[in-house]
């Protein structure tokens, strides 16, 4: 019989982690399959990791993550030489910092300080962009030649029809 359970983040952390990190046979996270698995196997499968089976459809052996972690750490530890001292991370950091600092002379420090000052006092400059005018007509690729200057021909009053017409042709 199913019983309604109120999930508590701390109390059911192991269960939630199981669902969250469950991966199916194709290596994808699959919450629904995890829940289905839990419904089949019960909460005991989560509480007692030695019974935890991932992807029961496959023939892979049971994996206990904590056991595996311990085994890997032991393996790494056995590879390290016994006499090698464990590095102190904080000490390494301090040494590196001192080394970098010693290479930066006073002038460089001044210039870095100046840059830092500038950055702290930086005011963004707003540049006024020219407003692009709306082009109502297509722009011609070649400049239009200057129009031919036409000197108007005065047609004499006494010019006969033929001569007047001929002179008039010059004004077109």
């Amino acid at each position, binding site marked *: 019989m199913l019983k309604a359970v109120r999930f508590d983040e701390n109390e059911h952390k192991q269960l939630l982690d199981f669902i969250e990190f469950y991966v199916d046979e194709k290596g994808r996270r699959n919450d629904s399959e995890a829940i289905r698995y839990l419904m089949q196997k019960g909460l005991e499968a989560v509480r007692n990791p030695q019974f935890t089976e991932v992807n029961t459809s496959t023939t892979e052996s049971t994996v206990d993550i904590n056991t595996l972690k311990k085994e890997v750490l032991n393996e790494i530890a056995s590879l390290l030489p016994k006499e090698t001292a464990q590095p102190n991370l904080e000490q390494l950091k301090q040494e590196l910092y001192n080394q970098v600092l010693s290479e930066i002379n006073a002038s460089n420090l001044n210039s870095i300080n100046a840059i830092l000052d500038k950055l702290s006092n930086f005011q963004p400059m707003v540049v006024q962009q020219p407003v692009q005018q709306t082009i109502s007509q297509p722009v011609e690729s070649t400049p*239009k*030649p*200057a*129009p*031919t200057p036409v*000197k*108007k*021909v*005065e*047609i*004499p009053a006494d010019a*006969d*029809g*033929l*001569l*007047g*017409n*001929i*002179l*008039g*042709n*010059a004004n*077109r």
Partner: protein
Amino acid sequence: MAFWDFMKQKASNNMNTLPLLVGNDLGYGQVKTVSGSMRSRFLSAVGTPVSDFGRVAAVTTEKELLESLALTYDGKKYYVGHNAIVNTRNGRLTLRQNKAESEDNKIKFIMALALFTTEDQEYAEFDVITGLPVLEYKNQKDQLYNMIFNYGRPFEFTMHYGPKAVKKTIKIKNIKIISQGEGAFYDFVLDGEGKLVKERAALVGGTVMVVDVGYRTTDIVTMENGRYIEPLSNQINNGINQVHQEILRLIMERLNIKKELKDMDEIVRSGKLFHNMKEYNVSKIIEDAARPFAEDIVDNLYTVTNDQLGSMQRVLLGGGGGQIILPYVRTLLDGIIEVSLLEDSEFCNASGYYKYGMLLKSAGGF
């Protein structure tokens, strides 16, 4: 008078009055220039020599000069006319539409004016009248004006008279551009002073159609008592070059001789062809090529006039191709309209431009 004799006379009499009025017909077949009784003509071809094959002997005659035309402009040497055809790889006749945008046309224009300077003359000024095909007139006249006027700057170049190089500066003072057939009409009705020829005035008092048969285009211009009638004017994009091409084909077909377009001008003028030590009479071939072209032009005349060609006063034939098609046009229009060939039809446009310039000068419009 040939320009060579005139220029010699001009040089000896110190007649360098400025500026000189010239009518310039920047044709696709020939470039013709007229100033008074002085006229020059050269093949409309420009080429750039790879190696300098220029004339090495001094130029002593007009023929020698016209066969060795060369100038240097903007640091580049150009061969012009016959010299371009013979001594360059890229010298050829071109049928490109835009006269104004072509560098070659600028070179032809400069050369045309340079021929109107004496050999040692270093500076000259010109008033120029020239023309454009009827339908290209409106769109291209401003461009052509700018090309000729050169934005007010003089043309500076070196003219090569054989081995002698003379630096020259030419300044264009005034320019007038009209449509091509108009020039032929003015040549008919005006005299050399730009005055009306009274006997001819009566012949053009009605509506006259001028057919200017050029190398690339044939222009049809209608003049009503001297007034240009735009709706009845037209431009046919067929010129005498099509006749030349047909003659080429027929020569190959009937005589099995391969000639080139550049040879056609001489063959058509003489009616003869010399090949493999034999002279052939090609009059029949020319006739067979010209007749369909003439029929096409007559058809266009009917179209332009809306089949009212019979109500016009006369047809004036001009241009370099006028002479060739005259007999066929006369036959086709026999009993419909009188057809006249303009005197010296090849030069009629250039001559008409000059005469019109004289008229405009006298009327203060130039």
